[in-house]
């Protein structure tokens, strides 16, 4: 009898822990991080994007973001452009999905035209910045294959270091290395490797703030391009959660009357 109990205990615990590969552990952490962030409902926030070229010249964009969490699919989000002045009133609506291509619409206020656009351009720059569309999109678990690398201190926190390889089509990366803290799954740093597996960009996320007593969001994200010397800083302000946004508010026809 004791012999059987020992076998069952070994199978249940020892077996699971010992048999977990680096891939399984990486996936498990990604799933835990995803589960941790579930239930935020919706949020709105203001984003200031500062583009800096190699000579240090800056150009600034102001964008307002509205995001709705969708159960069992990627988020729905709206980006409303306030600056530069020539794109004021322009807005973009995205229904993100896991491995399936996202649905995307662009509103051009001069013509009052809502244009369905292709989301194929994952690796293209967002508004001329060092952020690609895929860097700013909804991060669903199934978008990557994971591998746990190691555990190490990252500033004041202890971090998991995980490698993830995009599984969706048309990514500009072979892989990314992600540092996220063990406690609240806050991403501290991401290293991006280009299609030839050369280091391309580094993203650092800082000044995390807690919302609704649970959800952590960075106030600052800095993307440095290691190959062209340019950088882009995103500063987030006025985060508001559970504002009452509904799926109806994310209809392409709503793009015409956004303010």
């Amino acid at each position, binding site marked *: 009898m004791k012999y059987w109990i020992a076998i069952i205990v070994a199978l249940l615990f020892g077996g699971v822990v010992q048999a977990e590969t680096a891939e399984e552990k990486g996936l498990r952490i990604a799933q835990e991080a995803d589960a941790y962030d579930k239930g935020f409902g919706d949020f709105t926030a203001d984003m200031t994007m500062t583009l800096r070229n190699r000579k240090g010249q800056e150009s600034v964009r102001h964008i307002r973001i509205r995001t709705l969490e969708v159960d069992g699919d990627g988020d729905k989000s709206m980006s409303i452009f306030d*600056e530069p002045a*020539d794109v004021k009133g322009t807005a973009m609506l995205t229904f993100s999905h896991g491995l399936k291509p996202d649905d995307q619409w662009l509103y051009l206020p001069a013509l009052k035209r809502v244009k*369905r656009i292709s989301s194929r351009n994952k690796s293209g720059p967002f508004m*001329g910045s060092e952020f690609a569309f895929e860097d700013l999109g909804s991060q669903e678990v199934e978008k990557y294959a994971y591998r746990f690398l190691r555990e190490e201190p990252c500033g004041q926190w202890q971090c998991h270091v995980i490698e993830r390889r995009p599984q969706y089509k048309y990514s500009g990366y072979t892989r990314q290395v992600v540092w996220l803290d063990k406690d609240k799954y806050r991403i501290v740093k991401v290293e991006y490797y280009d299609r030839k597996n050369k280091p391309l960009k580094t993203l650092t996320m800082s000044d995390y703030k807690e919302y609704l007593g649970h959800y952590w969001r960075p106030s600052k994200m800095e993307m440095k391009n290691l190959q062209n010397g340019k950088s882009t800083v995103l500063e987030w302000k006025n985060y508001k959660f559970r504002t009452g946004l509904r799926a109806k508010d994310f209809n392409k026809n709503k793009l015409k*009357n956004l303010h």
Partner: protein
Amino acid sequence: MKGKILSAALLLFSLASQAEWRGNVTAEARYFWNDALYTEQEDIYPSLSAEVEYYHAFDGTDYSLTITPFYRHDGVDEERTHADLREARLHFARGDWEWDAGLIKVFWGVTESRHLVDIINQTDLVENIDGEDKLGQPALHGLWYRDWGTVELFVLPGFRERTFPGVDGRLRGPLPIDTDHAQYESDREDRHVDYALRLAGTVHDDWDLGLSFFSGTSRDPQLRLVTAGGQPRLIPYYPQIDQIGLDLQATLENWLWKLEAIHREFSDDRFDAMVGGFEYTFYGIAESDADLGVLMEYHRDSRGKDAPTPFQNDLFLGARWALNDAQSTELLAGGLFDLELGSRGYRVEFNRRIGQNWKITAEAQLFGHIDPKDPQYPLRSDDFIQLELARFF
């Protein structure tokens, strides 16, 4: 008209503290390098324009107000000096419904080289021959959200006449167009109430479909020769029409497949027209951030050579080059090739942001070979380049 716009603008300025503004002031110069066909015409046309959008949301209600005055002063062509309210509408949204009342601007369609199904607004033709500038349309507009898409209803009380270049302007025919004496099939003339209905939805995620119906005064006038009273001139005649329109776009990764088609019935005539084709985009060309889109659209009109448009049996080939840089530099180039008459016309557009608030746009229109039977034949000497410098706020 000008006095009313000014007093409305002053009233709005007094409310500015609770409002949102955006707009631009633009300096423009057009240079026509070929000799003019008609003596009154010039080679250089400088002009200045301004468009301002004022938006006000009424706190604690579902109502908002949008007013968008536009004004252009042209240094040569009196007809191109004009003012318009592009929009002046009260908007209301609640539940599954949205309503607009006032002057509205609406766009329907998917294709790039011609906007065939787009019919609610009249074309402000003196602005640009590409037909993308529109006059504000008096309307009551309801939009109803359904699970499968949207239903839109338009009641359009009041008609806007198309604008045409004056005798001093280029891009016109040999005879002046007398816009002060337009004629209508309807006894109610420009007070005829038009109706429109549009159904739009998405099928299988990637197929966007629109079906529209219009009944009322045609936005496209027939130009009738009048010789009475000495000077021969052309008078716009606006017939009554019923029109069904279809627009379809399939968004399939690099491919955008597009189709627009109309069937239009007059009291004694009818015709069909279509435009269809694709845009294929090469993303990140030559390992850069730039995208290159190639476009092909085929035009057909059942009236053949009698069609009053240059699109009776034509092929449009174009390219869109977007640098995706911090200045949003973009270049568009296209050619329209008449497969029957052999006419050719080309258009190039370039634009780039300067600093944070300025934008420069250059546009060139070349009428290559134009067959004498082509409706564009009177424009054969009107190749031009246009430079625009705009300050946005």
